[in-house]
């Protein structure tokens, strides 16, 4: 479809300029929509007077305040959107109005995010496009444009360290470094169009969307009622919200890096349970490490230990289960899993020892064989000499 707007505006400097290349990558342009769809006017006319006339419905520059309703004029209409993408939701504007952004927008705040701040304007791409500002790998960066700007966020009185903290987290590592698109980003926990920070009571519900077993165990743990009574934000209490680091066994117990010490004192019931769990976990981790080291040594010596190594994977699974069981906050739950793992490590360690003993046996056998062969060779040599002398 002819879009005469680009004929001029592709040659104009910023802010009026829009390159044809940029606009060609816009999802709206690819679906056949012209500039007039948002700005009004007559995109088929080459005469600027006619193209940008009031009669043709020319709106001109769309103010920030007008953006949500402008976008909603299409994106909220199910019958219209079906023609372009039947799978696309049409409740974004409804959701937006429930969000912190939307509620402040409704009160006339021109600084809060509107559709174009996240999705882009003329370079608007579908979220599945890795170059889109709302592609999962780019969402955190997009949010940080405002939420990491201390000066910009001053009037709102909220922290601006979320992005910096997120960058240190395992979730960021999974998403951005390893490319796991199922890893959480800002919108996973806060919502996208209806973006609102989860309330204290809702944190566990949010985390449990992925961390199902941990959440189930927590629900039956002694911590559930205590946290609720103390108005503690569930999982965030121990794991933080944005700077969620990779958990270690040192987090449990009464050691210097343990989170339990934030509430528990040495000697109290909780501390005893925590120390017991820590001991169980480290005991299994050490046993796994020892048996893997022994099996590795045996393998380097040329011994066949593949079956034992396969079995050792079961011990690692048991340790993983035990680390999940921690969320029941009862050492008996953890002990059940660590005991299963220790049973496996005893077998794999024994297999490693057997392999090393076999290795020593082979060396001794080789030595004896070489001696026997050497004696035979000397005997043969002497016999030949004797034979030929006679």
């Amino acid at each position, binding site marked *: 479809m002819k879009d005469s707007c680009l004929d001029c505006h592709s040659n104009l400097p910023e802010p009026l300029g829009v390159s044809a290349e940029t606009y060609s990558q816009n999802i709206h342009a690819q679906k056949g929509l012209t500039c007039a769809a948002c700005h009004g006017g007559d995109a088929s006319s080459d005469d600027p007077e006619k193209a940008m006339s009031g009669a043709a419905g020319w709106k001109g520059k769309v103010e920030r305040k007008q953006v949500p309703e402008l976008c909603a004029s299409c994106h909220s209409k199910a019958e219209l959107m079906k023609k372009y993408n039947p799978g696309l939701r049409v409740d974004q504007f409804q959701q937006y109005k429930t969000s912190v952004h939307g509620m402040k927008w409704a009160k006339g705040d021109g600084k809060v995010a509107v559709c174009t701040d996240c999705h882009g304007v003329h370079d608007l791409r579908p979220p599945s496009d890795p170059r889109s500002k709302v592609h999962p790998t780019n969402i955190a960066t997009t949010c940080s444009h405002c939420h990491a700007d201390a000066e910009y966020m001053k009037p709102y009185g909220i922290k601006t360290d979320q992005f910096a903290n997120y960058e240190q987290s395992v979730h960021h590592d999974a998403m951005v470094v390893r490319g796991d698109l199922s890893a959480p980003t800002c919108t996973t926990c806060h919502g996208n169009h209806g973006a609102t920070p989860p309330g204290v009571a809702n944190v566990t519900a949010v985390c449990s969307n992925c961390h199902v077993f941990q959440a189930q165990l927590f629900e039956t743990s002694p911590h559930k009622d205590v946290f609720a009574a103390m108005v503690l934000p569930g999982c965030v209490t121990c794991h933080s919200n944005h700077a969620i680091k990779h958990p270690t066994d040192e987090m449990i117990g009464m050691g210097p890096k343990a989170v339990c010490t934030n509430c528990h004192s040495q000697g109290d019931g909780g501390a005893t349970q925590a120390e017991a769990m820590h001991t169980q976990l480290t005991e299994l981790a050490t046993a796994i490490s020892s048996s893997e080291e022994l099996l590795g040594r045996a393998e380097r010596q*040329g011994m066949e230990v593949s079956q034992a190594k396969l079995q050792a994977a079961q011990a690692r699974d048991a340790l993983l289960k035990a680390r999940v069981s921690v969320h029941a906050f009862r050492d008996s739950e953890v002990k059940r899993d660590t005991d299963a793992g220790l049973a496996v490590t005893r077998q794999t360690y024994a297999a490693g020892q057997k392999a090393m003993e076999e290795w020593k046996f082979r060396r001794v056998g080789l030595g004896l064989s070489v001696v026997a062969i050497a004696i035979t060779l000397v005997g043969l040599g002497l016999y030949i000499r004797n034979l030929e002398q006679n």
Partner: protein
Amino acid sequence: MSSMTNSVRHWLEERFPLDDIKTLMEKKKVPVHRYSYWYFLGGMTLFLFGVQVLTGALLLLYYRPGADEAFESVQFIMTQVHFGWLIRSVHSWSANLLIFMAFAHLFSVLFLRSYRKPRELTWLSGILLLFLMLGFGFSGYLLPWNTLSYFATKVGTEIPAQIPIIGRPTLLFLRGGEDITGSTLTRMFGFHVAILPAIATLLIGLHLALIQWFGMSVPPALEAEWRAFPPEKREVRFFPNFVLRELMAWYVALGMLGALAALFPWGLGVKADPFASAPAGIKPEWYFLFMFQTLKLIPAKVVGMDGEMLGILAFGLVGAVALLLPFLDREKPFNTRRWISGLACVFLGYMAVMTIYGWVAK
């Protein structure tokens, strides 16, 4: 003890002409000269083949030739069977040493000109035996059914497919179908334990009979020397003098095999997964490396013809020349002997360089 030995000997002498056999064995002589040590290579090759037969028979007691069972049966042999690790490792190391020794024996016979009249058929049977040993190596390599052997066989069977006309039928014959499957495994197993051993038995029997019939060859220059100065000719009895010396060499080889098996046991690898992609840098065993590396380096097109096909045909030509060598060796009207030695040296150097290159190349 000695009375029992005498009783047994007497029992056998009543039924078999042991004295005649002893006289025949003592009558056979082995020339002694500065190149005599090369005579041991043939016996060494035979010894290693014997080790292969013995260890192979023992492995057959536990090996199961099927895609679902082969790897596991080898794993069982290596881990559960008493001294299974030793038998399997000796079998694998001995296979490599056997092929090396076969090549060494071939080149020693070539440079000592032992192929010349009247020993042409001995040479012919020897070359065919070398091809058989390579066939043993190729067929046996797939039997553990691990990743390396699966993909090496896949690449290896694709090479003859380049030969015009017979290429595709050859590929289908070797694989038992389009792809490497359990059918290929059972086929290779059949080749390895039945067909090739049967042919090898006949050829080895013929080869040894011809050696016994014609006796040991002496290099032409030495033969001329001895004709001129008969007193300089030295010989030892084959039995027991040469046999005892050969026994010493066999014991050394046995010790080496044991040491290799104990110090560097043959690995099991990872079970073959036909759906996985080929490991990067997959290459065949060392004895095929020089051919493989050559084919990799030949340009795709050479004077308008397919490069790989030309390479295969070139190696085919080398094989044909090797077979017909005794008939190409002549002094009149044109002395080809120096050419033969020179080309053999060049080819030996080429094999060595390309094998090393293929080994270190990624």
